[in-house]
């Protein structure tokens, strides 16, 4: 299995509080992604990174920010959590070289906003 960890694995928080989820990789892959998974929607891209300090928005980026200060870590922050952000969050990595476009996924973080 690709070396990807996510922390925390489970979190319950209250509306209006900030939350940060962490993704850590040991594969030295260039690309890192944050997705959310909700019933009936598959996975939807929140933000992605194509290098240290290089990030861009996905299709559902409102209410989320990211940072990548080093290759191995990609942080997702909910500045002020809302109930609509209750979801399962997955981090993914991809090398993007030599035809290696496949993604490898972390185990997920289940976030509940009450």
């Amino acid at each position, binding site marked *: 299995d690709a070396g990807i960890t996510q922390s925390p694995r489970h979190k319950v928080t209250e509306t209006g509080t900030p939350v940060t989820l962490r993704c850590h990789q040991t594969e030295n892959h260039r690309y890192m992604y944050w997705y959310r998974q909700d019933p009936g929607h*598959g996975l939807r891209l929140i933000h992605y990174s194509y290098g240290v300090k290089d990030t861009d928005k*996905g299709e559902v980026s409102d209410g989320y920010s990211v940072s990548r200060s080093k290759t191995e870590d990609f942080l997702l922050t909910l500045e002020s959590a809302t109930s609509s952000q209750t979801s399962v969050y997955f981090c993914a990595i991809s090398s993007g070289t030599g035809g290696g476009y496949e993604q490898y*996924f972390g185990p997920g973080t289940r976030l509940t906003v009450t």
Partner: protein
Amino acid sequence: AQSVTQLDSHVSVSEGTPVLLRCNYSSSYSPSLFWYVQHPNKGLQLLLKYTSAATLVKGINGFEAEFKKSETSFHLTKPSAHMSDAAEYFCVVRLSASKIIFGSGTRLSIRP
């Protein structure tokens, strides 16, 4: 607009019978295509990928998929289902590093 459609939200087969999970995509050029599997409360695992080499792609656990450009399809098959195949399956289209589209998923159930 580019998109991916998984034609069945739920497929149920008997153990030992063939599996067919259908996926159609819409793209203005040949994309990279993937199938992933997700077991309950787990992350997604790559089953197989198509990146413009052979149109018949073999993956893990006996799964394979055939890329048919004329039909814009990338259906996933397995000759004989096993109980351990019960999971959610996602068809994915990669158009660029920032444009990766997931289908809504097909839940596969296996009857003993």
